[in-house]
């Protein structure tokens, strides 16, 4: 699946997007954050406060307990500050 990062999450990780293949057992958004956090220091830094991180699956906001099966695109970003 494609994973996208925005704002300071993108800056900390150093990537705007990437393809990832999480293993079985990574079934929810929260579990995906935990799995990504293990990929290196930059990821651990980006996700150091997982409760702050917002997520969207296929352009719709979701909570950490949302399932990721069938998702085409999952995005992680800080709380929004537009308007």
């Amino acid at each position: 699946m494609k994973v996208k990062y925005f704002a300071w999450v993108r800056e900390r990780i150093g990537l705007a997007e990437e393809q990832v293949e999480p293993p079985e057992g990574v079934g929810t958004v929260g579990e995906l954050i935990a799995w990504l956090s293990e990929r290196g220091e930059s990821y651990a830094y980006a996700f150091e406060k997982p409760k702050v991180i917002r997520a969207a699956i296929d352009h719709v906001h979701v909570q950490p307990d949302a399932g990721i099966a069938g998702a085409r695109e999952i995005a992680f970003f800080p709380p929004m500050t537009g308007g």
Partner: protein
Amino acid sequence: MTAIVTVRIQEADFDTAHEIAALAKGRTDIGAVVSFSGICRGNDHGESIAALTLEHYPGMAEAEIMRHADEAMARWPLNGLTIIHRVGRITPGENIVLVVTASSHRQAAFHAAEFLMDYLKTSAPFWKREERDEGASWVEARAHDDAAAARWTRS
């Protein structure tokens, strides 16, 4: 007449008077137009701000704004609405965002404009980065913006 919904995300500036006129053009069913303009400030708590840079999530930003536009159309008797959100670098005094709502009567137009702005602030995927004297930093979300959006939630 059918309601016209316009949602645009763009780098270019917009002309507020033109957008209001375009929404009401040729119609006699509109009795009230409310517009809200969000403008880049040059200071925050006494510190000067040189510019803002707006980042957004292409695709989701349009979809999220459209979802709230649809909800506004369902909740209030609107004749039309226009939402424009700029992205990229914006300097003090420049427009950031525009919401225009049109209805037969003022109350629906006022309420819908406020509802749309409250949700744009907290739920549309845009992020502001501020350039200050000491460097650039991401703007932090404010709790009072969440509270403002929460009051529109129907139980």
